């Protein structure tokens, strides 16, 4: 018997194909990506909800494994797409999470040792403004932007994840970024 060489890593597509007859093989996909997908969800919804939604994501993926497009070796866009859909069901929680980020940024202004001085710098205020601007994006714009920023998917992968065209990814992205920079420019003049 020969030991498997370290480089012999099956593609995600191969593993998913095997899992159609041998369901336990899907555990390989879980082991490869659970932590990353959990982190993505955690950043968008907070830790406590992330536990449930990440678990649901892999269960939903398992149920849909027969429909996975085997021409795509990398399963990440597919998994992030499922996660993003599930995140979309928690709109209020998303808003609350952005509010928490905003509060954290504002609290940092208060907590700073030289608060009266640095409040004028509004660096943290800009972070707060960013949280607010992200909360105000449309769901479609936000999903595209956060898959790029947090999940670090490519434009093509985002298109696959969300089932939209490559061109739509580009246009949503530029709209989202334009909105953010408009809002941030208003708060970025630090001089008193």
């Amino acid at each position: 018997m020969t030991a498997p060489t370290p480089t012999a890593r099956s593609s995600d597509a191969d593993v998913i194909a095997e899992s159609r007859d041998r369901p336990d093989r899907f555990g390989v996909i879980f082991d490869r990506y659970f932590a990353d997908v959990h982190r993505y969800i955690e950043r968008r919804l907070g830790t406590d909800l992330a536990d449930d939604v990440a678990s649901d994501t892999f269960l939903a993926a398992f149920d849909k494994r027969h429909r996975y497009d085997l021409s795509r070796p990398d399963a990440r866009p597919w998994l992030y797409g499922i996660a993003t859909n599930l995140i979309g069901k928690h709109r209020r929680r998303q808003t609350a999470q952005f509010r928490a980020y905003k509060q954290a940024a504002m609290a940092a202004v208060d907590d700073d040792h030289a608060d009266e001085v640095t409040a004028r710098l509004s660096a943290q205020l800009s972070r707060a403004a960013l949280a607010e601007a992200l909360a105000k994006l449309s769901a479609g714009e936000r999903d595209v932007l956060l898959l790029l920023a947090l999940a670090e998917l490519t434009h093509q992968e985002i298109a696959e994840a969300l089932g939209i065209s490559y061109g739509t990814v580009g246009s949503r992205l530029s709209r989202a970024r334009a909105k953010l920079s408009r809002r941030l420019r208003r708060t970025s003049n630090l001089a008193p």
Partner: protein
Amino acid sequence: MNDLDEIKNLMDPPPGLTDATVQAARSRLTAAAQGTARPRVRSRRRRTGGLLATASVLAAAAAVAIPSLRDGDAPAPAAPEPSGNILVAAAERIGSAPQGTGRFWTTHLQIGTTRVVGKPGRSYVIEANNDVRQWTGKPSYQGDRFSGWHPWRPVDRQTWRRDGAPGTWSETVGGLQGTLSSRASGGGVQKLQEELTFMLSGRKVTADQLRTLPTEPAALRDHLRRNRGPAKEGAISDAGWLFADAETLLLEAPAPPKVRSAAYRMLVGLPGLREIGPVTDALGRPGSAVALREPERPGTERWLVVDRATGRLLSTQEVATRSGRIGRQGVRTAGDVLTYRAALAARWTNDPPKTSTP
């Protein structure tokens, strides 16, 4: 840093994935694979204050300017020198001071912060401060003047001249370009709608409430621990809280002399606290310092600088403990003062200030 990094930094709650969560999700999947029942594994995580806790942890991380160096601080002395001498001497002196009286408690504080600017190899430190005067009473008054940014020490002034003596500097924070201007602003004193209060243990307290604080060190410490604001719990060490409370009681709040004395004594023996000895503060005034190092604030320590003759607290300052990048303050040299709060006056008076219309 571009906008994507900035989003990533903003949306960065403390990672909360535990082995238990992985196991629960994995066994749920295994159950599905085996075609057996799938128990809905609800998270057992406590939800109370989850978001707030997240917010406060982030706040602490952001406020302290986490250094990007990972090599750790220069180790604090294994057996810390006793910090008792300076603190006990100060407690004795301040405790025998007379209890003042007056319609207003008035303070004059200078609150400063610094940045490193200029080109690599030709960098220099600039400083800006707020000069804040307060009259706490009924009614209360406040005035502040912003100094604008300027080169700090003589050596910084020289480098600044070689840099072309600019009047503004740009600062990039979180991908946003901002301007640090040398222009001063503010200055007038105004009557306030509400009575001024002081932050103690993360809660607002009035001058009247300060009179009822315990005058025994252990009792004061217990009182402060019991009354802590909930939002910051967990993000600041116990020593960090008590140190901050002592700063408030000794630097700016009208605490009775016996409470101030207890505030010094309750710090004796705190973990991470050590005695530094004779120093000059950020404004160049001589005093004795004790310092607190907290694991939550790597690369920095906080100093109390005490006037030996009177036991009064002259200033508190945040000091770099190693050379390297320290968050927003840039690449610093060990011993650099990063931020400071200095008391120029703190006394009782019957005279309200002259106010100015804004």
